[in-house]
């Protein structure tokens, strides 16, 4: 059963039939988590680094921002029995337009926000495929924990 995670969206599942998938990450970032013991998977697709942009919007759409979406992803996975020390954590997306450098570079800001939050909470990334100017799709198979990243035009690989 395919569970589509939209833009500014998050889903967790312990249903072995479930496949979590998020399409087309540009400067947005996708964070996939999986606990092989509890057999719980989760996937977040956030768009912007900081909910201070608009607190009201963040309360309506917590998965839009890194600082409100990431804690929700982890808490929701814990509620299904996942444990932080057992979780694989995969971070991908954060692309940028060519020559963007520091200017309006939301992909880079998103990446920095993730690193800051992970550092503060002692979360270690198992795999990171961030930046460049490609468009990525991420998939989490809840039954076996396979997490794959597909770069548009270049094919898919299991991490």
């Amino acid at each position: 059963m395919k569970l589509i995670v939209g833009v500014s969206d998050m889903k967790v599942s312990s249903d072995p039939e479930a496949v979590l998938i998020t399409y087309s990450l540009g400067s947005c970032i996708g964070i996939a988590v999986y606990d092989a013991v509890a057999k719980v998977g989760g996937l977040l697709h956030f768009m912007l680094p900081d909910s201070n942009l608009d607190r009201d919007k963040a309360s309506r759409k917590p998965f839009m921002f890194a600082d409100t979406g990431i804690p929700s992803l982890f808490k929701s996975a814990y509620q299904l029995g996942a444990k932080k020390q057992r979780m694989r954590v995969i971070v991908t997306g954060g692309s940028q337009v060519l020559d963007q450098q520091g200017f309006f570079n939301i992909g880079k800001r998103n990446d920095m926000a993730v690193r800051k939050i992970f550092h503060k909470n002692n979360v270690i990334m198992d795999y990171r495929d961030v930046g460049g100017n490609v468009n990525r799709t991420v998939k989490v198979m809840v039954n076996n924990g396979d997490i794959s990243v597909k770069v548009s035009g270049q094919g898919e690989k299991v991490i």
Partner: protein
Amino acid sequence: MSDIESILKDIDRLKPIPQVANKILSIIQNPDSAMADLSDIIVHDVAVTANLLKVANSAYFGLPRKFESAHQAIVFLGMDQVVDLVLMTSSSDNLKTAQEGYDLDAGELWRYSVSSALIARELAERKAVGDAHLVFTAALLKDIGKVVLSQYVADSFEKINTLVTDQGYTFREAEKEVIGIDHSELGGLVAKAWQFSPVMVEIIRNHHVPQEATMGQTETYIVYLADTLCMMMGIGVGSDGLAYRFHKDAVKFLDLTERDFQEIMSSFGEKLQEVEDLMQNA
């Protein structure tokens, strides 16, 4: 026949844009024309009315009562909005199809086009510059060249992608280098063949290099930025990814801050569901 010749011939294979769209475009670009002329066209064309009511009654507008006539929609939504909706329903045929060369499934280029058009309009309104109808329509149709070029991109994808990944080309520059013409240049030729105004042709042709537009420069910058924002949000983006250049002068020209960028992304991101409903009905 060379590749370019056969590509140009392929322009004729596009489904022609309905006459009514051309009529509306020429009226809105003529300062002497009257609102009543537009109203007449819309109200008296059965197909236009049917399509208009479908989109006007979509969840995007979230209205409690359904419109039953074009006249009601015009009174309630305003002529500006109705014109955009009519132009949108007139352009959907070609843009809804899958584009193999760009790794876009059916509906994805359409999602990209509608999203760009809505964001372009928002930028024009936010900054109170540019002709809002012009930016809406140009943003909607800017990638029409991809529909013609898709097959040729598919045939040469490896070569194009190598130039992008190994040599720092943009996807558009690589198309030009490998195929001899790129999708924006080709889009300009389609716009010309469809007898769009010279300024519309110019915007579509230069939507990746707005500084090169010789007219409609404000509108070209707006369409360029709307395109960039859509790419960043990953809405309907394909194998060309984000491999286009960021032109700092565009944000300077429109006096935009990064906060403006983030606000536009977040407000658009909040209504994605409604946008989806709008494009499904168009």
